[in-house]
């Protein structure tokens, strides 16, 4: 069953054509990697999917409904973006994790320790000042913050850049584990082709704002990556 369908998406950013009629279909529960060189439209596509930006033309359907007709807040709580730059909000790690649930009026249901553990961080971090964490720790807080919303689709923009290499595989493992457990659909943007091979069911190869090729991860040939 397809959960997100992108149809002929076009988007200009300033003078640059970021998306040039990109189409892609995401199955519910799959983990799909987007690979491709800088400027191929990966980040723009992610930002269109939770409607941080509006497409110039084309459409994106979420569970069959055009997202242009949905309430953006409701959409963003289901299709949650974890941007590449992990900006910490003011306050403790706990306050960061609770931010989304609090706005949704569901702070009681939010298990901060659990979210942190799912993102590969010790629950002991809860009381720390979020802005004083290292780059890799911030990445994981940003992930925990997204998980706290109980998303249906998770949009990850380079989630392990800046994380300690020895912790990268553990973080991949935890993401995979809860994604599989909860039937989460994950869109995983990465520069790192071996990572894409490790984590995903399918790999979409983007080039100049279109999907050049979508293959099962097992059939993906490295040479075709760029």
């Amino acid at each position, binding site marked *: 069953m397809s959960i997100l369908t992108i149809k002929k998406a076009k988007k200009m950013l300033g003078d640059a054509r970021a998306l040039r009629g990109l189409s892609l279909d995401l199955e519910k529960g799959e983990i799909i990697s987007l690979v491709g060189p800088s400027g191929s439209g990966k980040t723009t596509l992610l930002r269109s999917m939770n409607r941080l930006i*509006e497409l110039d033309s084309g459409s994106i359907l979420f569970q069959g409904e055009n997202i*242009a007709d949905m309430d953006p*807040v409701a959409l*963003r709580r289901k299709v949650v973006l974890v*941007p590449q730059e992990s*900006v910490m909000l003011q306050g403790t790690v706990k306050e960061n994790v609770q*931010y989304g649930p609090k*706005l949704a009026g569901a702070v009681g249901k939010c298990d901060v320790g659990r979210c942190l553990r799912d993102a590969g961080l010790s629950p002991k971090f809860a009381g720390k000042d979020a802005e004083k964490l290292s780059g890799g720790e911030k990445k994981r807080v940003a992930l925990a913050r997204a998980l706290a919303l109980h998303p249906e689709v998770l949009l990850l923009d380079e989630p392990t850049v800046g994380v300690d290499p020895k912790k990268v595989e553990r973080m991949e493992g935890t993401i995979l584990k809860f994604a599989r457990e909860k039937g989460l659909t994950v869109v995983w943007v990465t520069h790192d082709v071996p990572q894409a091979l490790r984590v995903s069911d399918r790999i979409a190869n983007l080039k100049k704002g279109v999907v050049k090729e979508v293959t099962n991860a097992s059939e993906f040939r490295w040479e075709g990556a760029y």
Partner: protein
Amino acid sequence: MTGIPYTWEEGLVIMGIMMVMLVIAIGLSVWKKIGIAREYTYAMIRGGLQLFAAATLLYFLFEFEYWYYPIWLLLIAMALMGGYTSARRAGKMPKAYRITTPSILVGGTVVLIVLRVSGAMPFKPQFVIPLAGMVFGNAMTICSLALNRLTREFETNKPTLETMLSLGATPKEAMEEYGRMSIKAALIPNIDSLKTLGIIFIPGSMAGLLIAGTNPILAAEYQIIVYLMVIGGGIITSIMVIALSRRLLFTKAQQIAEWV
């Protein structure tokens, strides 16, 4: 009994000396490359000419029996000009006058009504015009400061704002903290002058009354009344302009507007 210590012609000479001084100060800012010299010079010349034109108008208005007909036009013109001037301080924000004008108009009008009803402002031109000028003038200044700060916060904190939106915040929720900071920053000058009232800062209208020979205690009382009102108008204006700016800073689809 005008309070002015010299004649009109002597005043022109003094003004010449002042001009030389100001040219030196502006020269200093050119040297420091602050980039305001041209705007300042323009503002000065324009302001000076306007003030003399206004003074001439007032001179005749004060003598005119049916002065309360044209005065309404004057008040509306004040709010419009204030909105327009303030909008130009909003950086890249398009159509900012749509939010500055109503904010200044509402903040100023509420205050003038209170001044009139309470009896602090007799319905005579020499009261209505200067008081309206002070009230609208301060509302405009506060409006400019608040909007300038808010647009700057948006420019600097775009990633933070987008993070909040991504976590399901509405534009209102996402900008709340920045709005608050902007209002607070805009009110700083007023709070500061309040705190030093009488110690450093003898406010303009009291100074004018003193120079004209009014009893200091009566002048102080009048000044406080005027001050409270002017500040009240500023608070209303600043809260309004921040609330209204939301629909220019965000799109209908709750995205950050592209001009930011």
